[in-house]
């Protein structure tokens, strides 16, 4: 059975292996250079306190390969589900060859076990290897990425660490199960993609934020969490000063900020997540926040606003939860995979002919 599975699978397995070898080779060759440029840059920027600019410059140089490799890791599990999972049974049923192979001296359960095992483990190995290599390669970039592309950001988290392995296992078994119930290759492929994409969106939006209860805290305003000010002019009269918050919290670089609000001295929310907060008590015509000649000085103005008692109230998942989250999420996908596998074995015994 192993021979037959391998014989039917070797073509696409070889193609994927070749792609992985090329990818790994490219990343292995360019990785050390990337890391040394990063450490040289850090050494230089620490001396004159310009690391912010260095990060922007360094990341800007490599953002295309960064996005490309992340995308590959994100897509690989979906591809395993669509091209390996869905056709596993539908292809046999469309050619009627299931009637040939299920009438050899081997039970369907055994047939399915070998098929699932060999193909599924290959998919997991490919996604796992790809995920880890990319995690290693992009470590300097992950440290210098802007907050919406940081390690904990929804898009990047799923393309790092061991989670891709869990995604691949799940997507593959999902494909097999959908194929078994739909029985036609193309609809099964489409449905697999739709269901998998939905789950992959639901996970970071609905479930991942609550895997561990998020941290909530109030923070003074500083360069770390303020994007900038604006003063809306209403005719000649200057309106109140508005503060734009960033999705970041001071002292927790790389945290995944779930919400970031402005609160006034009484603790009332004055600006919801992502909206600018108007600070009415600060004069925009005189004092530290007045644009006298040039733009207002950020630091002195923030000192004044902090003194008045304005704060950022943020809910976030700190960066040091990256690996716990990876393990928990991989575990969740492993459980889903096991559940679907159990269903597939029951279905193949009872329902298919």
């Amino acid at each position, binding site marked *: 059975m192993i021979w037959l599975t391998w*014989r039917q699978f070797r073509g696409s397995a070889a193609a994927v292996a070749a792609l992985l070898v090329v990818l790994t080779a490219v990343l292995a060759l360019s990785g050390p250079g990337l890391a040394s440029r990063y450490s040289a840059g850090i050494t230089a920027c620490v001396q004159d306190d310009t690391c912010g600019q260095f990060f922007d410059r360094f990341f800007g140089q490599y953002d295309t390969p960064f996005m490309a490799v992340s995308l590959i890791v994100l897509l690989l599990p979906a591809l395993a589900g669509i091209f390996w999972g869905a056709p596993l049974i539908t292809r046999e049923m469309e050619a009627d060859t299931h009637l040939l192979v299920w009438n*050899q001296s081997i039970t369907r359960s055994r047939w399915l076990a070998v098929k699932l095992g060999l193909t599924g483990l290959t998919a997991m190995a490919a996604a796992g290897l790809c995920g880890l290599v990319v995690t290693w390669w992009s470590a300097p970039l992950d440290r210098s990425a802007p907050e919406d592309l940081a390690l904990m950001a929804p898009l990047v988290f799923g393309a790092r660490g061991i989670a891709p392995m869990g995604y691949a296992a799940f997507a593959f078994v999902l494909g097999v199960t959908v194929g078994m119930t739909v029985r036609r290759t193309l609809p099964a492929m489409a449905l697999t993609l739709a269901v998998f994409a939905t789950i992959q969106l639901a996970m970071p939006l609905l479930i991942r934020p609550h895997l561990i209860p998020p941290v909530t805290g109030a923070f003074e305003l500083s360069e770390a969490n303020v994007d900038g000010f604006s003063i809306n002019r209403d005719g000649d009269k200057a309106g109140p000063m508005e503060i734009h918050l960033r999705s970041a919290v001071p002292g927790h670089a790389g945290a995944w900020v779930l919400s970031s609000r402005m609160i006034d001295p009484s603790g009332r929310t004055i600006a919801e997540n992502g909206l600018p907060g108007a600070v009415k008590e600060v004069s925009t015509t005189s004092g530290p926040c007045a644009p006298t000649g040039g733009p207002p000085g950020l630091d002195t103005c923030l000192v004044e606003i902090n003194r008045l008692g304005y704060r950022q109230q943020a809910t976030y998942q700190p960066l040091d939860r990256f690996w716990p989250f990876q393990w928990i999420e991989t575990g969740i996908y492993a459980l889903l995979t096991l559940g679907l596998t159990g269903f597939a074995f029951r279905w193949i015994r009872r329902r298919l002919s």
Partner: protein
Amino acid sequence: MTSVLQAQGLGKRYGRRWALRECTIDIPAGHVVGLVGPNGAGKTTLLKLASGQLEPTAGDITVLGGRPGGTPAQLARVGFVAQDTPVYARLTVAEHLRLGARLNPRWDDGVARERIAQLGLDPTQRAGRLSGGQRAQLALTLGLAKRPELLILDEPVASLDPLARREFLQGLMEAVVEHEFSVVLSSHLVSDLERICDYLIVLVDSRVLVAGDVDRLLATHYRLTGPRRDPDRLPTDQHIVSARHTDRQSTYVIRTDAPIHDPAWTVSRLNLEDLVLAHMDKRPAGSRPAPLEVQR
């Protein structure tokens, strides 16, 4: 004598439609059994139930004394060649033999290689490139080399031309003589089965109409032709299979164990095809007319 296939009130339902119902048969071992009936009569369903591809909705079925398809041992005892003889288009002939060798503990590699050589098939040829007849022969080879005690074939020759049909059935018969196993094969054409079957099951509208030894069936069926006569005036031991009447004449096909002495009748024997058609002709009152004339 032991049974190869025993069914008790066997039924299979798809949704609300019964594909097979109230099927009770007992096929003794050592026969080549023909399963005849029009398309959609439930032949494939019965054969799939026997090979364990399907689970019955009602009743019981045992094949060679075991539950079909449950265990590797049971699977090894029953060979199955599916309708249209599917093979893996991308695997070569030799790889199919390797598949058989890997998946069957009783695989007879000598038989397989000999047959492939006899048929003149190129082992390196992909199965997708074979002609319909060659593909059927390859599927049959897989079924034979498995060395089953019962080989089930579902419409194996339906899509073959007359020559390939004859070669296929000839190959099957040679193997039966050599290895002494039981065969159940289905067809919607009696003429395919006439030459090779010694046991016949007629399945119409998901029900078994006739099941029995071919010689015995032929010996107990008669066609009676004579002056018009009502059915209730026939002797009680003559079971009417079909009846046709014109204004002055009646033609009956009857089944009886007793000799026929009535001098008013012209008595003639039936061949297998006529016998099957006569049984199909007898429609239960009120049922929709089955398109049986098309089969003639």
